[in-house]
């Protein structure tokens, strides 16, 4: 069964400290992994996807198929990074894909 697990409900770090939001997934096929972010009073939006292999707002995430993980990292946290982060999984190149979301991690950056 497809499943996404985010073990931390809340992560609080100081500004300038490194950030790592954990995500593990369960899927028998070839997954496409995403990180979505929801800032206060804004809609859910895509932050990054693993196939793009790009850094967005200083965040990166590497797909580790051996550990079935897709952790989100940023070397130096900024106050504007405070938000709700959701890891998500989708079937790859499917004609009718659906996204399976984790339960989310609230990231709080302390000044």
């Amino acid at each position, binding site marked *: 069964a497809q499943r996404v697990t*985010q073990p931390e409900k809340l992560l609080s770090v100081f500004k300038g400290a490194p950030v790592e939001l954990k995500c593990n997934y369960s899927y028998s096929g070839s997954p496409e992994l995403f990180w979505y972010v929801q800032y206060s009073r804004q809609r859910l939006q*895509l932050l990054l996807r693993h*196939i793009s292999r790009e850094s967005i707002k200083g965040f990166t995430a590497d797909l580790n198929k051996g550990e079935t993980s897709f952790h989100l990292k940023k070397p130096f946290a900024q106050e504007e990074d405070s938000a709700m982060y*959701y890891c998500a999984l989708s079937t790859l190149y499917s004609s*009718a894909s659906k*996204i399976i*979301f984790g339960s989310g991690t609230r990231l709080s950056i302390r000044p």
Partner: protein
Amino acid sequence: DAGVTQSPTHLIKTRGQQVTLRCSPKSGHDTVSWYQQALGQGPQFIFQYYEEEERQRGNFPDRFSGHQFPNYSSELNVNALLLGDSALYLCASSSLAGVTDTQYFGPGTRLTVL
């Protein structure tokens, strides 16, 4: 482009009633997916519509049904409302023309069932 729009913003219903939520996709998108987000949880996939047909469905009862119109807009209908149906309902649109489809989310409709 206003992006994905949803109406209404908020809705209050009582148990047993029926509700219809509406979604207009982002310009150029032909696929609409619906999600239910309970308080403190991530969004849960309800179903997806493409070419006016339900293409895939999550683990939701038949009380949840939908429709897609020729202009790609969509409705989500929920019959015989239960207290547990109280949630934020999100609509997301995408285009299946590309190899991978990025889903763009609307602001959601907050449904409260009393």
